[in-house]
């Protein structure tokens, strides 16, 4: 059910209006909030939010007969409306990162008002999901990122059926991001990352949508006549389980592996060439066996920039028994 959450008049055109879609089955007290469109170049989140809305509307209208909505689910498909309209990561008016403005300010600038509204609407949530993509210049295989993973959050992560969860190390730079602000409010918070900026990865998005629906069933937000929501084998990676591969030389990078590949130690990931001579200046090899979760998508690469992140193979997989 589409609800207006904020209207801000604009000096030169239509008002800036933000919406959420909300369904409340009234059978449980918990709330699940899902947020997309924090940056103007993250298209996957818009797509996932719109497809989930289509599904939940169908459930609500009893066109999906096997499902029933039990809890309260709210989806915020668009937050950074101005940047999305401009087709840029940030809105040129202020040039600021929306996801560095939480918890916002009711009486502040436009971005602060929007962030404040979003926090207000989600502060009493039990769980929060932020839909995101890889950072600029990178493609990410679908995975989950969380702070402070406790047993309950791990259980939720497992029900999302992605198989991969990475812990986000605490950092002062993240304190004013939505996910962190939710976490400090004791909301079970998960960042779902897939694909790359400025592009729609439908296959990856379908993985996300399927996982989120499974999570809704597993947590009881929706019921299904025949399923309880499966909890898949999931591997949990701490920072020390991750290997960053960085460029020693600047150049033009071309990949030979793809995100989602399981790499053998020594396998070539790609190479970079000198732009002026075309000569190969550096080859990149997997220093360890593991899963290629993030790979550079943009060819121009500076010295010291990241080429790839590998999640290292574990001697004994740490699966989570529940």
């Amino acid at each position: 059910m589409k609800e207006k959450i904020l209207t801000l008049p604009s000096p030169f055109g239509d008002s800036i209006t933000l919406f959420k879609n909300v369904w409340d089955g009234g059978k449980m007290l918990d709330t699940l909030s899902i947020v997309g469109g924090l940056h103007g170049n993250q298209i996957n989140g818009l797509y996932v939010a719109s497809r989930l809305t289509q599904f939940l509307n169908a459930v609500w209208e009893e066109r999906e007969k096997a499902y029933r909505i039990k809890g309260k689910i709210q989806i915020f498909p668009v937050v950074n409306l101005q940047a999305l309209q401009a087709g840029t990561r940030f809105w040129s008016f202020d040039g600021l990162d929306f996801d560095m403005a939480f918890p916002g300010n009711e009486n502040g600038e436009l971005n602060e008002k929007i962030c404040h509204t979003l926090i207000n609407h989600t502060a009493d949530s039990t769980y929060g999901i932020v839909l995101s993509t890889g950072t600029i210049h990178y493609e990410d295989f679908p995975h989950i990122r969380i702070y402070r993973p406790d047993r309950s959050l791990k259980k939720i992560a497992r029900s999302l059926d992605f198989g991969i969860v990475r812990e986000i190390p605490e950092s002062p730079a993240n304190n004013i991001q939505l996910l962190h602000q939710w976490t400090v409010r004791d909301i079970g918070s998960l960042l779902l990352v897939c694909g790359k900026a400025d592009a729609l990865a439908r296959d990856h998005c379908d993985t996300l949508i399927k996982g989120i629906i499974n999570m809704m069933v597993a947590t009881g937000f929706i019921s299904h006549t025949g399923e309880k929501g499966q909890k898949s084998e999931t591997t949990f990676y701490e920072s020390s389980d991750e290997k960053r591969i960085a460029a020693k030389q600047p150049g033009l990078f071309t990949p030979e592996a793809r995100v989602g590949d399981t790499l053998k130690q020594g396998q070539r990931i790609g190479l970079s060439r000198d732009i002026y001579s075309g000569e190969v200046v550096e080859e990149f090899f997997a220093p360890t066996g593991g899963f290629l979760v993030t790979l550079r998508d943009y060819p121009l690469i500076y010295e010291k920039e990241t080429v790839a992140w590998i999640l290292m193979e574990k001697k004994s997989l740490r699966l989570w028994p529940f």
Partner: protein
Amino acid sequence: METKTVIDYKSPLGGSIRIIKQTFAAHNAKPGKRIAFLAGLHGDELEGVYTCFRLIRHLRELEKNRPEAFQGEINIYPAANPQALGSASRLAPFFGTDMNRLFGVENPDSPPALSTHELLADIKSCSDLAVDFHAGNLHLKELPQIRIIEGFDKKLIPLARHCNVDLIWVHPMSPVFDSTLGFNLNRSKIPTLVIEAGVCLRLDADFGDQVFRGMLYLLQQTGILTPDPATGTVIENPLVVNSSQIAMINANQPGLFVKHAELGQRVIAGDKLGEVLDPIQGNVLEEVVSPLTGLLFTLREIPITYAGAALARIASEDAGMR
């Protein structure tokens, strides 16, 4: 003057991104205090870059004519984000990141994050005291002022009084400061003054000159330079206020803000500061008046406003301590 490259990473298109440090060593083998001046972390903030130019030029002359004046060591980083400065951009342009939101990050994984990591270490290694120059944001012009986070005020106010600024503003801590250079140095027990003057993408040389005179006075008062008998320095006695002594004036309507007052003016309660206009319908939407008597130390430069946009800040003269 000794020139040293403290950060260097190569571009794929040729050349390097280099952060330069200019050092003026103490005349005696056993130096007194050491100070660092840093400008241009945001590439569109230029007053500090100009102040560093004035400092370098003055100190080079002094080194030639009166080398015994150097009792301590002076380190100047005149262009801390050279790529952003060259692009007149707040953010590091290729990477889209804010250098002054990356300090204190563990495991840096991009050239800007690595640069802040190394820069912080370098400043710590050569400073007992630091000054970080900034300007207002894209929208607001600031009278030369020093902003101090509560808790650091006891140590910093006495130093700030030497800097020839119009205002010292002691404000509460906010998570946004966690990853800034100023906060991280102060937390590391290196007293650091954050000076704001002017507005983005413009240079008010008078402000730069005012701050330059303040920096010379600071160098003399801290014993880093001996006083120059030929050129005594007279500095302003700043107004010292906390946040409760400041009136923030925000737009109630979106429109075009036209100012009717000047930055630095002493305004009386009820004085007209400007108007917010509706250029489409030809209406005056709002008359903006001063709610108190005091110093107009912030004024909007970019006329386009949304509701909530900051238009002006006034420091109450009644409460402030000259």
